[in-house]
């Protein structure tokens, strides 16, 4: 049963395996590198399948938060848990998407997307098939055999998204993935992300310094600043472009900007 599901294209497979998000929790956690704590006393619970966006000024510890969830950084104090169990270290069920240049430059886009599949031991033929399917889904079918430096920054980020999702992670941790893109490309990428995430059921923690991006994508927004977690707010009507002028959304936006001190 599980082997036959592997051969199906990602669309069908992910839809059938629907609720496969994971719950991520920080309990009284102090985050940072040894000797240089960035954020202290964080209590944060990310529900399975939720999209949580994290905003804050640069240097406030947003990336530290993501790396802690990924298991790359141990907490200095307190605990980080996945579904109630301590996170032992990095693993395939929590994929990380970086701001830029995280694709391996000597691999073609397709080979980059195949990498997580190879690590999971998917047979070669299926690897290629699945990678092609993912690239097609993010609109890169024609660029599959290009090296990363041969395509545009937006295309590289799309390939990175495909690579992260190809490994079928239960959580996707995104570190300002669209931060280096121009406004136009950015809006397109946000729509693509919403579309591609649909049906994967994955939990998403999305770090950004753009409040509008945070409000568009997140079910909830976490505000990070001056070394602590300031607040976590529910977003009315997430992922609706038309909700931009919603009075509740406008008020929340004003609130967030005030508490971030801008």
């Amino acid at each position, binding site marked *: 049963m599980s082997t036959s599901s592997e051969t199906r294209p990602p669309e069908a497979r992910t839809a059938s395996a629907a609720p496969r998000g994971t719950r991520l929790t920080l309990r009284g956690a102090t985050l940072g590198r040894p000797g240089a704590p960035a954020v202290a006393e964080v209590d944060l619970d990310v529900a399975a399948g939720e999209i949580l966006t994290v905003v804050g000024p640069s240097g406030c510890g947003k990336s530290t938060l993501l*790396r802690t969830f*990924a*298991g*790359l950084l141990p907490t200095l104090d307190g605990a980080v848990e996945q579904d109630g169990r301590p996170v032992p270290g*990095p*693993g*395939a*069920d*929590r*994929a*990380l998407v*970086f701001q830029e*240049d*995280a694709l*391996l*430059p*000597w*691999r073609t886009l397709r080979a980059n997307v195949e*990498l*997580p599949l190879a*690590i*999971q031991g998917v047979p070669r033929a299926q690897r290629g098939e699945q990678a092609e399917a993912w690239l097609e889904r993010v609109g890169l079918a024609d660029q599959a055999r290009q*090296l990363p*430096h041969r395509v545009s920054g937006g295309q590289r980020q799309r390939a990175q998204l495909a690579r992260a999702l190809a*490994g079928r992670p239960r959580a996707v*941790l995104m570190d300002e993935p669209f931060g280096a893109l121009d406004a136009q490309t950015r809006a397109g990428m946000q729509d693509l992300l919403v579309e591609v995430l649909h049906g994967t059921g994955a939990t998403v923690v999305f770090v950004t310094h753009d409040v509008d991006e945070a409000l568009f994508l997140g079910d909830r927004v976490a505000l990070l600043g001056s070394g602590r977690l300031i607040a976590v707010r529910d977003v009315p009507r997430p992922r609706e472009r038309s909700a931009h002028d919603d009075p509740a959304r406008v008020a929340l936006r004003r609130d967030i900007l005030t508490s971030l001190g801008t």
Partner: protein
Amino acid sequence: MSRYPRRTGRLALRAGSLAAALGLWQLLTTLEVNVWLRFSQFPTVTDVARAFADRLLGPDYWTDLTDSLTRIVTGFLLAAVLGVATGVLVARSRLAEDLLGPVLEVVRPIPAIAMVPVAILLFPSNEQGIVFITFTAAYFPVLVSTRHAVRALTPMWEEAVLTMGGGRWRILGSVVLPGALPGIFGGLSVGIGVSWICVISAEMISGQHGVGYRTWQDYTIVNYPGVFVGMVTIGLLGWLTSTAVELVGRRLTHWLPRTSYVPGARPRPARTLASTVEPTKAEEARDEHLV
């Protein structure tokens, strides 16, 4: 019209420069010029060419050639494998750095050729000693450049593979080795050059057969054209092997972004429309070929 003359033009220039150097040599030696520098005892180009032709027909030349090549290839390959291995180890493991670092740093400044006494003491045969010296010569450049290249890797690559569930060996095979390859080949290019210097010197001191041994023999029996045949042979072999290393390196690192910038080429003032448009076309075509 577009790319043909440019390419042959450059080839002709290179051939011409070589021919001019040989011509000057021939002129100075046949005229037996003695103006502070003394060319009267110096063999002429034709003397050397004749000696070369004789050697090519004799059996010793090819034995010497294969002996030297076997020594350098063995020593160099050993150095490449072990140099990369220790370089990666020292760069990735603090324990390895503490254990091996001090020893390597003390041995590194010793010129490989100064290892001849050590080689004579250690190895039962001259042959092994020469390979050892060739190995030592190439080992350190490879080690040092590997170490630097591994340390300079983008940490993001490793983090990405870790969050895909990749382990230590996956990171080594998919990130560290391919990512360090451009730097490693820098070390291999330097290494093959130093290896030649040392294999020739070692043969001169303790060899039986080999280009270095033959060259030194010719010198002791005052056969100057023979000495020059040896020198030319060394030059050609060195050029051949470093080109091979260079080509393999370029092939393996074909993914490196290359600009279409040509060193030293300036945009020339436009004379006619044709002369401005066509060179850029040729440039593009060549870039495409490289990548």
